[in-house]
C-alpha cells in the first residue's frame, strides 16, 4: 500500500466524518432553537450504549437496514435506483411467513426454505421493474414506486385478509405462526460462551451472521467476479460496457433480480428472530432506510455496515431522549442532515481525488498537457 492509496482512503473517510460533524452542528442548532440543551441530549445519547442489552438492540436494528442497503447498493452499482425495496421486502415477508407456516421441515431446511421463498418473491417483484425497463424503457424509479404502492396500499391487506390470515385469531390480523423449526435461533448461547452476560428478554438475532455473510458475498460478487465486473462497467459507462460485450437488457434484468432477492431478506430477521409470524405491526420503512444507508456507505459493504450501525444507534438512542423530554424527532433531523451533507462532501472529495490523480499522471508523463481530461472530470461527467 503506497502513500497515494493511503491518502485516497484518508480522503474517503474524511467525507462521512465531516458530514457527521456538520449534522451534529445543525441538530444542535435545532435543539437549541427549540429550547433544549444540546449538550444534555448528546451526552444522554452517547451514554446510551452502556450496557449489553442496548448494544444488542442497536445491532438488531442495524441488521435489516444493512440488508436493505445491500439490496439498494447492488442496483446502484450499475446506476439502477431500486426504490422498490420497501414493497419487495413486505410482500416477501408476508408470503414467506405463510409458506413457512404451511410446511413442516427439519430445522435448518425449514429456515432455508423460508429464506428461498422470500428471496424468490423479492426477486420476482423487482423483476417486474427489470422487465419493464429492459423491454419497454420504463424508468425503474417510476415502476418501483408504483410497485411499492401496489403492495403497501392494497395487495398486502388483500392477501392477508382474504387468503393468508390465521382464522383462529379474531382480534389482530396475522398469518399463522411459523413452527419452531422455521425460526432463526438467537446467538445468546454464543455470547454466553464468550462470557458476555445477556439479560433475559434481550436476544442477539442469529441473522447478524447471515447479514455478515451476505455482506462478504456482496464484496466478492461485485469486485471479484466477471459478473461483478460487467455490473460495474455498465454502471460506469453503459456504452463502453455494451461494446465490450455486455448485453444491456440482460444486465438490467439480472441486477434487478439480485437486488430484489436481497430485498426479500430484509424482513427476515424480524420475522424469524422476533415475531415468528407476519402481523399488522410488522416494521415498515426499512426499504427507504436502506437507501439512506447505501448512500451513506457509498455502496461499499463495510461502509454500509458502519452506516447501518450508525442509523441503528440513532434510532435506538432516540428512546432515551424521549425519557428525558427531549423531542426524539431530532434524530430524524440528524439523519436527514447527515444524508444531505454526505452527498455534498463525497462530491467535494471526489473532485479533490480526481485533481490529485491527474497531477500524478501528468508528472509521470513529464509534464505533458492534461488540461482537457482535467476539465472533463472536474466539470463532472458523473463517474
Amino acid at each position, binding site marked *: 500500500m503506497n502513500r497515494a492509496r493511503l491518502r485516497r482512503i484518508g480522503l474517503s473517510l474524511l467525507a462521512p466524518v465531516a458530514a457527521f460533524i456538520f449534522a451534529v452542528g445543525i441538530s444542535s442548532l435545532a435543539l437549541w432553537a427549540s429550547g433544549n440543551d444540546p449538550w444534555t441530549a448528546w451526552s444522554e445519547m452517547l451514554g446510551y450504549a452502556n450496557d449489553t442489552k442496548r448494544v444488542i438492540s442497536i445491532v438488531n436494528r442495524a441488521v435489516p437496514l444493512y440488508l436493505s442497503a445491500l439490496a439498494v447498493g447492488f442496483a446502484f452499482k450499475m446506476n439502477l435506483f431500486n426504490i422498490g425495496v420497501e414493497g419487495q421486502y413486505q410482500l416477501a415477508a408476508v408470503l414467506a411467513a405463510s409458506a413457512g407456516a404451511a410446511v413442516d421441515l427439519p430445522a435448518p431446511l425449514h429456515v432455508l426454505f423460508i429464506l428461498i421463498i422470500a428471496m424468490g418473491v423479492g426477486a420476482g417483484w423487482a423483476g417486474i421493474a427489470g422487465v419493464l425497463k429492459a423491454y419497454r424503457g420504463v424508468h425503474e424509479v417510476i415502476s418501483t414506486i408504483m410497485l411499492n404502492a401496489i403492495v403497501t396500499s392494497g395487495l398486502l391487506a388483500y392477501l392477508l385478509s382474504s387468503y393468508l390470515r390465521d382464522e383462529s385469531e379474531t382480534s389482530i390480523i396475522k398469518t399463522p405462526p411459523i413452527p419452531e423449526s422455521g425460526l432463526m435461533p438467537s446467538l445468546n448461547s454464543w455470547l454466553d460462551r464468550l462470557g458476555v452476560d445477556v439479560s433475559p428478554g434481550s436476544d442477539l438475532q442469529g441473522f447478524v451472521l447471515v447479514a455478515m455473510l451476505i455482506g462478504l458475498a456482496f464484496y466478492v460478487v461485485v469486485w*471479484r467476479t*466477471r459478473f461483478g465486473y460487467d455490473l460495474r*462497467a455498465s454502471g460506469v459507462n453503459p*456504452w463502453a460496457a455494451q*461494446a465490450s*460485450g455486455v*448485453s444491456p437488457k440482460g444486465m438490467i434484468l439480472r441486477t434487478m433480480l439480485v437486488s430484489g432477492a436481497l430485498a426479500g431478506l430484509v424482513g427476515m430477521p424480524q420475522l424469524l428472530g422476533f415475531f415468528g409470524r407476519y402481523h399488522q405491526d410488522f416494521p415498515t420503512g426499512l426499504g427507504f432506510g436502506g437507501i439512506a444507508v447505501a448512500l451513506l456507505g457509498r455502496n461499499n459493504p463495510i461502509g454500509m455496515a458502519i452506516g447501518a450501525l450508525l442509523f441503528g444507534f440513532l434510532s435506538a438512542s432516540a428512546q432515551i431522549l424521549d425519557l428525558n423530554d427531549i423531542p426524539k424527532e431530532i434524530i430524524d433531523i440528524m439523519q436527514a442532515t447527515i444524508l444531505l451533507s454526505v452527498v455534498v462532501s463525497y462530491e467535494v472529495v471526489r473532485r479533490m481525488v480526481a485533481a490529485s490523480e491527474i497531477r500524478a499522471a501528468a508528472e509521470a*508523463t513529464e509534464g505533458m498537457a492534461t488540461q482537457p481530461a482535467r476539465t472533463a472530470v472536474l466539470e463532472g461527467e458523473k463517474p
Partner: protein
Amino acid sequence: MKTERDVDAPVVELRAIAKRFPGVVANDHIDLVVRRGEVHAIVGENGAGKSTLMKILYGMQPPDEGTILVDGADVRFKSPRDAIAVGIGMVHQHFMLADNLTVLENVVLGSEPRRGLLLDTGAARRRIVELADTYGMDIDPDELVETLSVGERQRVEILKVLYRGARILILDEPTAVLVPHEVEDLFTSLADLKAQGVTVIFISHKLDEVLRIADSITVIRAGRTVGTAVPAETTARQLAEMMVGSELPTPETRGSTVTDVVELELSGVSLIDAGRTVIDDVSFRVRRGEVVGIAGVEGNGQTELVDIILGLTRPTSGTLALAGHDITDEPTRERRHDGIGYIPADRQRYGLLLPSPLWENSMLGHQDTAPFARGFWINRHGARERTATIMAEYDVRSPGVDTPAHALSGGNQQKLIVGREMSAAPQLLVAGHPTRGIDVGAQAAVWEQLRTARGNGLAVLLVSADLEELIGLSDTLLVMYRGRIVAQLDPAAVTPQELGAHMTGAAA
C-alpha cells in the same frame, strides 16, 4: 476564381481568426468575407474547422487571435447573447426544441413578450404569423412540436432565430437530417429569406447542394482558407479537389500480404432507422492480411456500419459472416470471442471506463478470457500483469496500473486501447480513427503495429478521416457516401480529384 461585386461593406468579415486547442490548431488564421443578402456556403471536410469558426462567429467560443467585423464595425462576443444582439443567429444541426410545447411556445421561449406577469400570447402569435408570411414559411403556431416532421422542426428553429431579430443566419449542415423533398422546401425558404435581405451562412460538405443554393463559396481545409469560388464558374470536381487538397500522400511501397481467406463478409447489409436509410445495401469482404479502408465524410453511415459489425445494432436486412460462419444473429460478446477487436472512434464513450483503474480498462472487451479471467472469477493478478506489459510495449505513460483512466492524456488513453486490442491477438480489427489525437511518434508506432499484425494475417477494417492514414495503410479503399459504398479504389493509384469527388457525391 473570385469575382468582384459592387456591394457596400461586407455584412460579416472575419480576419485572421485563430483558435487553438491543446494539441490541435482548429482555425489557423482563417479569413471570411460574407456580403449582404447572399447565401454564402462554407465547405470543408469534417475536422477542417468549419464548426469552430461558426462557434466563434456565434460567440460560443472566443478566438485566440483575429478580428470579427459586423457591418464594418469591430465586435467582440462574450456569449451568443452578444451575437444575437448584433443580428447573428444560428440553427444547429441538432435541434433544440421542447417536444411537448407548441411552435409558438418554442419560438418565444427565452424571450417571451409579457403583459404583466403573463405571456402575451396575442402579441407573440401576431409576430410569428407576420414572420412566417414574410419569409414564406407555412407553419401553424399552435401545433405541438412533437407532431412535426424534421423539416418543419427545422423551420421552427429558423423562425426562432428570426424572432430574435437575426439578419444573419448560420445554418450548420441543415440538409444532413432532411429527406430530399424537405431539402427542396428548405431551399425555397432560403430563397425567400434572401429576397427579404437576410444573409445566410450555409455550412455543408454536399457539393451539389452548395452549387445550387450558394451565391459564393469559401473552402476550408485543415484550419485554413484555401480559396473562394462562385458557383457559376466552378464545378463540383474543382471544389472537391480544393477540399481534399491537391496532394495525396503516397503509400509506402511494400509487398502485399493479402491472402485469399475471407475473414469478414457483408452481403446486402441495410439499416433503416426511423424511415431513413442509413446503410444502403452494403456488401464487401475483408480478407486475412488485408486492410480495407473506409473513406468518407463523417456521417455517411460509417458509425452505423461499425455498430452493425460489432453487433451493437441489428441490420434491417443482409447478413454478416466471420471466417465463413454466419454471425448476423450473434450477440456482441460472442463476436468478441470469435476474435473481433475494436478500437472505437470515440474512445472515451465506447472504449474506456474513465473513473476505473487502468487494469480494469485493459480488460474491457476481454473480461472473460485469460489472463483477465479464470473461470467465473476475475484474475486481478493476471490483469495487472497484462496491463503492465501493455504499458511497456505500447508506451502508455501512467504512474501505475491503478491510476484511473481519466487521469491520462488522450494520447495515452488511445495507446492503452490500441495495446489492449492488439495484445489480444484478434482475427479482425475494426478500427475507427486509431491514431486520432496521438503524437506523431506514437502514430508511426501504431501504424507499424498494424502493418506487422496485417503481415501475420490480421484482417483490418479501418474507418478514418485521415487520408494519410487511409492511403498509407489500406490495401483496398472503399468510399461511403449516403450509406452506400460508392467506389472501390486502389490506394496506390487514386487521385485526389477522384477521392474527393466520390466522398462528396460529386462523381455522378
